[in-house]
């Protein structure tokens, strides 16, 4: 089957145009899953290297001059980080909503509405991401 000879355009990735809702849901779920894993490890790496602040002098911490506060402030002052945060929220929200959808599918609930529930989770993700923009982009220096 999969080792059949090369059929050129027949088996190529151009097929994405012919995907249906369930397939897109699957691809987005995989993608957001990998993004979240990538974020998790970056998150651990950044914060654990910044945590030398725990040994810092209490007065330095009070004056917000410790490594941890400096790191966070430096990151949060960047516009690209703020935009990435909105993206991260969107990715996480979609993964949660589609995860709930998949749980329902596993329980055999509403299988005939699986495409609509995928569209609903997409729309809800969009709405939440847009609504979060004022919060995430507040006070950023351009």
């Amino acid at each position, binding site marked *: 089957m999969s080792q*059949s000879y090369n059929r050129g355009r*027949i088996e190529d990735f151009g097929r994405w145009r012919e995907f249906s809702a*369930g*397939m897109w849901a699957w691809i987005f779920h995989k993608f957001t899953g990998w993004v979240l894993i990538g974020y998790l490890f970056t998150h651990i790496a950044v914060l654990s290297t910044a945590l030398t602040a725990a040994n810092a002098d209490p007065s330095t911490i009070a004056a917000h001059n410790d490594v941890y506060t400096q790191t966070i402030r430096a990151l949060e002052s960047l516009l690209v980080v703020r935009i990435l945060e909105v993206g991260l929220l969107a990715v996480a929200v979609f993964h949660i909503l589609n995860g709930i959808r*998949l749980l329902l599918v*596993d329980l055999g609930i509403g*299988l005939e509405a699986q495409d609509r529930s995928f569209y609903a989770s997409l729309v809800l993700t969009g709405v939440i991401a847009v609504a979060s923009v004022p919060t995430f982009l507040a006070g950023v220096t351009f």
Partner: protein
Amino acid sequence: MSTQQPETQEDDESEGELETTSPAQQQRLEKKRQRAAAREQREAEAAERAAADENTVHLKVFRYDPEVEGKQEPRFDDFYVPFHKGMTVLDALMYARDNYDSSLTFRHSCRQAICGSDALFINGSQRLGCQTQVSDLDDPVRVEPLPHQEVVKDLVVDMEHFYDQMEAVEPYFQTDDLPDDELEEQHQTRENREKVKMSTRCIWCGACMSSCNIAAGDNQYLGPAALNKAYRFAMDEREGADMKQRRLEIIEQEHGVWRCQTQFSCTEVCPKDIPLTEHIQALKREAVKSNLKFW
């Protein structure tokens, strides 16, 4: 329209042999020439009609023949078939084969969506040629063999692997508690029949297997059709608990029911509208229940 070459060859041969052959042979050749002329006229007329008539279907058909040099490179052939109301893709293909190119190869038998022979990849989706109305499709109609299966010739794919997977789930009724009298009927309750009703509709066309992304990447995966068969018998109450256990052991293996990632591709393409994903999910739950036994 790729068979023009052999025909002209025939004509050349017949003319060369003309002087040295017997009267009978000459008669035959004469008839042959007449037939060829008539055919050419028919073809010309058909082409004229197609050109004159706006109402034609543009078919783009995948062609490949490993046995003929020059046809080993897969390509698409264009056919312009006169449209009539109610025309299916299979009708159009048959017209193209009968009138334009007799080497166009595809499988078909009953023409009423029961034999499962003509599952094709039509405009980017697995469908039965005989069940798909041309008027429902965008022009041009692109007809390809089922993806993820080896192409034998043109639109014919090798179904052997699909049949192997179907056989692997023992797709036949078997039971331990036989009735006392050999000829006694084994009745099924109406409720139980309703439960398996949809799953009995499978016509073994292979559309689901071809649409399944997981089956494409994992040859050992049983695939939607086989799992649906397993569902049909595992859920049949007449088979008894022992047989159900045996069936669950088959489907819960590594390449069994757990490979399904609920993409719903199979359910989308199934020409008999079998809720395949629902059945696979039900089998997953059965497998969990039989293994956990909290109750």
